[in-house]
């Protein structure tokens, strides 16, 4: 069974750092891209970026680029999303999803989401 299991909810203060994770199982992790999607409270889905676990090649959204880093540890089938200095506006639910060529580059499996709250 394909699964993406994300790390638990986090509460941080502005300026603090954070790394959340997304562990894949039930599929060949290096054969698919992992995408990160942001959903701010009451808002829609936003594509943040993706990583190819086979070579760690990443692409980021130009509108929110530079504020976060996407990385991967393919030996542990885990992708990461991290911030070095959080802002209150980073408060959101973050989803990882598998992007598959088998389904027309769609996001066919999703993690359960990680709620990140940034508040002083």
């Amino acid at each position, binding site marked *: 069974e394909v699964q993406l299991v994300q790390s638990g909810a986090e509460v941080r203060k502005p300026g603090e750092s954070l790394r959340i994770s997304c562990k894949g199982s039930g599929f060949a992790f290096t054969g698919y891209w992992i*995408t990160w*999607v942001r959903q701010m409270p009451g808002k*829609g*889905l*936003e*594509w943040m970026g*993706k990583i190819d676990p086979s070579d760690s090649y990443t*692409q*980021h*959204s*130009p*509108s929110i680029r530079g504020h976060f880093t996407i990385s991967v540890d393919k030996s542990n089938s885990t992708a990461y999303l991290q911030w070095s200095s959080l802002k209150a506006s980073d408060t959101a639910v973050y*989803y990882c*999803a598998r*992007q598959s060529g088998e*389904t*027309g*580059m*769609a*996001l*066919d499996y*999703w*993690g*359960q*989401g990680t709620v990140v709250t940034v508040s002083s």
Partner: protein
Amino acid sequence: QSALTQPASLSGSPGQSITISCSGMNNDDDAYNYVSWYQQYPGEVPKLLIFDVNHRPAAVSSRFVGSKSGNTASLTISGLQAEDEADYYCSSYIGSKRPPFVFGTGTKVTVL
């Protein structure tokens, strides 16, 4: 790619059909546009409904039909049911574009 535009809300009665539009799709001949649609219930994880314009994953009802004409993609829900009340998002992937992936603004479907 630019953000894709969807109607903020649509409603229909049980048994009716509704069509959600998604405009702003790339219409160039030099790049294939992979269109997909997602359904999201409040507080839940998005679910893939349609991929590659008009293909359904095995577990998705045939009441959901995707199409594309020019720079507009559409999702038609036929035989509307109470369980269809949710948010729906279109998306577009074009590998040669920056960004390569973009979501639509989302549509809230209400079943009257």
